[in-house]
């Protein structure tokens, strides 16, 4: 029972590309370690917490101070490695020869429940001394884990689904059950692990937990061969997907990221508490224009998400709505196994019942999603194209006979997104990537013409293949005009097609516009920089929509 085991687990998971292998590795770890260690391991691996105790910058400075390293040298190393915790780990290796102290063998539990939290209680000087002490007494193979947890950057290629699978295999119980048990808060303890691996299924225990979310797949051509009548059509809103749960009278709001967000939306919790029935609803939270019955931009919703206990004036300024897509449980009865079309009937029935109560008007905060009824597939396409007009991203298409299973199940729900907007832009800056992309220039900024000047309008780092990234990296190194720290300004020469989902006015940017989800969709080697789009074209796109 020690941190060493967890470090080994990390190495094994990190150096495996096979799902089956990872599941096997996890299973073996759970079998050979204590419940409390397992519980912390799950906590870390599922990313339930990546609290940052100390910033990467702080850690680097501390290292410089203790071992008398020049700061610039660490920064140079960082460019190669792309992760502060790893840089320090590698540099510590160089210091380990001078280590004389006896090595400690602490457990994951001790590290996470005591050693690290205790650091926050110390004054800066004591804290620094304590970190130095841990560095010098911790066996070398544990340094990376320690530094990563400290800086809140612990990540390894393990999804929550993989954890679910391995526990499911371990105790021979359905994945759905494990998945449900893993939803929501997970406080690491012997009990929480025992609950997870309990072979007896007791639905009462899952009381406040949301169901695993069912997700839509990208549209497939084969769907068009089916009759349009087999499907239910909804708008695809750009808000926060959520489950609104009321069980035993208590309301809880769970995001798809499994965060409990009751405190951010107290007006919704209050209104829903007054409903007599218990229920679990799957839906979307949005900031809503009630006059025009249209969703407002996601950026407004962002003003609500991270704000706990919002004031009355904030609540009025950014009015929210919960739009229910689906009813999953009603008065303690789990109805996920019945067909979607029948769940919809139930949803409509209960909605009209709740709506008609005079003492609790819910229409100012809650509704069920409107359905769309295209005549045929071309008609569906027309709806999709119109989706920008009502600030949605396209359509969600659901098989009427589908049951509510979990995950990105194939062949039952699809998202049919409106085509992205596109502009051809000129690459003007590049920045070194981090993490897996360290040592390569992978973060790019793109510009559009305004008269004779190139004005930056978007940054993007995804969309190129690894081969293209390497090729572009080489080009960048040869065509740098100036270096500012990790950023290089480049000879304007390369044109790329940039796709994005939304375009809006922004006072913060020199270009006067901001785009959402920009990404590279094509390296336009066929185009010269004079062929790139102008800012004016971008403004035109904006007008076209609104």
């Amino acid at each position: 029972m020690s941190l060493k085991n967890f470090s080994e687990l990390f190495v094994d998971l990190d150096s495996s590309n096979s799902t089956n292998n990872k599941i096997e590795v996890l299973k073996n770890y759970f079998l050979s370690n204590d419940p409390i260690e397992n519980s912390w391991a799950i906590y870390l691996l599922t990313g339930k917490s990546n609290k940052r105790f100390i910033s990467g910058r702080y850690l680097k400075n501390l290292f410089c101070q203790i071992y008398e390293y020049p700061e610039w040298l660490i920064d140079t190393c960082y460019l190669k490695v792309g992760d502060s915790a790893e840089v320090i780990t590698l540099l510590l290796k160089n210091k380990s020869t001078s280590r004389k102290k006896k090595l400690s063998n602490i457990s994951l539990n001790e590290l996470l429940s005591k050693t690290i939290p205790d650091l926050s209680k110390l004054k800066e000087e004591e804290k620094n001394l304590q970190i130095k002490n841990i560095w010098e007494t911790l066996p070398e193979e544990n340094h990376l884990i320690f530094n990563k947890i400290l800086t809140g950057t612990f990540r390894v290629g393990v999804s929550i689904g993989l954890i679910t699978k391995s526990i499911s295999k371990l105790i021979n119980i359905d994945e759905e059950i494990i998945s449900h048990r893993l939803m929501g808060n997970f406080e690491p303890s012997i009990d929480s692990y025992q609950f997870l691996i309990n072979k007896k299924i007791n639905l009462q225990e899952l009381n406040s937990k949301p169901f695993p979310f069912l997700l839509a797949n990208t549209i497939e051509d084969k769907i068009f061969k089916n009759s349009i009548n087999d499907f239910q059509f909804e708008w695809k809103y750009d808000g926060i997907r959520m489950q609104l749960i009321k069980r035993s009278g208590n309301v809880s709001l769970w995001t798809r990221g499994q965060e409990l967000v009751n405190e951010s939306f107290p007006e919704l919790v209050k209104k829903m508490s007054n409903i007599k029935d218990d229920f679990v609803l799957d839906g979307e939270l949005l900031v809503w224009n009630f006059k025009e019955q249209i969703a407002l931009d996601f950026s407004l919703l962002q003003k609500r998400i991270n704000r706990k206990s919002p004031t009355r004036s904030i609540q009025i300024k950014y009015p929210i709505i919960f739009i229910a897509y689906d009813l999953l449980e009603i008065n303690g009865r789990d109805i996920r196994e019945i067909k979607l079309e029948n769940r919809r009937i139930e949803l409509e029935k209960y909605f009209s019942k709740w709506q008609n109560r005079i003492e609790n008007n819910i229409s100012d905060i809650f509704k069920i999603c409107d359905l769309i009824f295209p005549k045929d597939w071309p008609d569906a396409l027309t709806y999709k194209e119109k989706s920008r007009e009502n600030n949605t991203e396209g359509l969600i298409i659901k098989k009427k006979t589908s049951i509510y299973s979990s995950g990105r199940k194939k062949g039952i729900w699809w998202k049919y997104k409106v085509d992205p907007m596109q502009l051809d832009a000129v690459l003007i800056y590049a920045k070194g990537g981090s993490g897996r992309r360290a040592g390569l220039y992978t973060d790019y900024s793109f510009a559009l013409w305004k008269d004779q000047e190139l004005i930056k309008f978007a940054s993007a780092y995804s969309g190129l293949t690894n081969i293209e990234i390497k090729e572009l990296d080489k080009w960048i190194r040869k065509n740098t005009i100036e270096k500012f720290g990790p950023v290089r300004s480049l000879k304007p020469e390369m044109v790329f097609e940039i796709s994005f989902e939304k375009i809006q006015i922004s006072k913060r940017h020199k270009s006067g516009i901001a785009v959402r989800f920009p990404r590279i969709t094509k390296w336009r080697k066929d185009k010269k920089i004079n062929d790139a789009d102008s800012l004016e074209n971008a403004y035109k796109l904006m007008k076209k929509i609104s």
Partner: protein
Amino acid sequence: MRTKQEYLIRYKDGNLYCELADIWIDPSKPVKKALITHAHFDHFTFGCEEYISTRETAILLKERVGDNIKIKTFEYGEEFKINGINISFHPSGHILGSCQIRFIFAEEKWLISGDFKLQKDDTCKQYEIVKTDYLISECTFGLPIFKWDESKKIANDISKWITNSPEKTSLLFCYSLGKAQRLLNEISQTNFKGNIYSHDSIHKMNNSYKKLGIDIKDTIKIENKKKIDELKGSLILLPPSLSKGSYLKNFKNIQTAFASGWMSIRALRKRSGYDKGFPISDHADWDGILEVVKKSEAKNVFFHHGDSEAISKFLVEKESINVLFFGN
């Protein structure tokens, strides 16, 4: 201070060149006279009128490119004269036959480190400390994040990696010359006692090493259509050039790894596409370079091969060593 042109050895067209002797060191294009530090292909080019190297390097080179080249050889430590310049080869510990080259002219000593390492390697001569006034050193791994583990530890990790997956065929990618033989030598001292296969290019080099008196474990030359069961649980050494493309389709149920110093960095490990990386290098790490700079007692140092900015600045600031630049 002298101008660049007045140095005994300088950079010309991207190569090290001694004008006084009209001789090039590891030139990348055909010249009249070339000194070759070791038999890796990135230090050798076809078409030179005359090559000069250690005896071992000459044998390895001929094995790789054929007898059709004119090579003059000298033993380690043996001095020879070209245009009044005393030249000698000294072990650099990189691979079998690799050398540093010392020039002495008018009581001024110059040392070209060649590729070198200080770590233990039973398949070649240990790096020899050579005193000099001017040092031209490689700095492939010239950052303090590079700190090599003992090769014995890496070999044990490799052994564990293979034996932990007895149902799999373990493909270990490594350079055919030098790294492969060093790994074979180390792995034969671990608990792994299964079969070791090697690709033809590696097999050939193994035989050359043996001919030169180096004790290398026998390996089986990999045939294209080996039965899958036979390969289960065994180790196969392959050159990195085969890691991409269709060659891997010859095997079933494999795990892959790359043995290289770069594998000490997670991002590079991930990007490389191998399942696993074993950080073992035939180049010096940061401490190794610093040690050589110090022990050579050089007052002036040049760096080439690699990012020299950081180590140069460090030596100037911390050790008050005069670091010079060739320019282009």
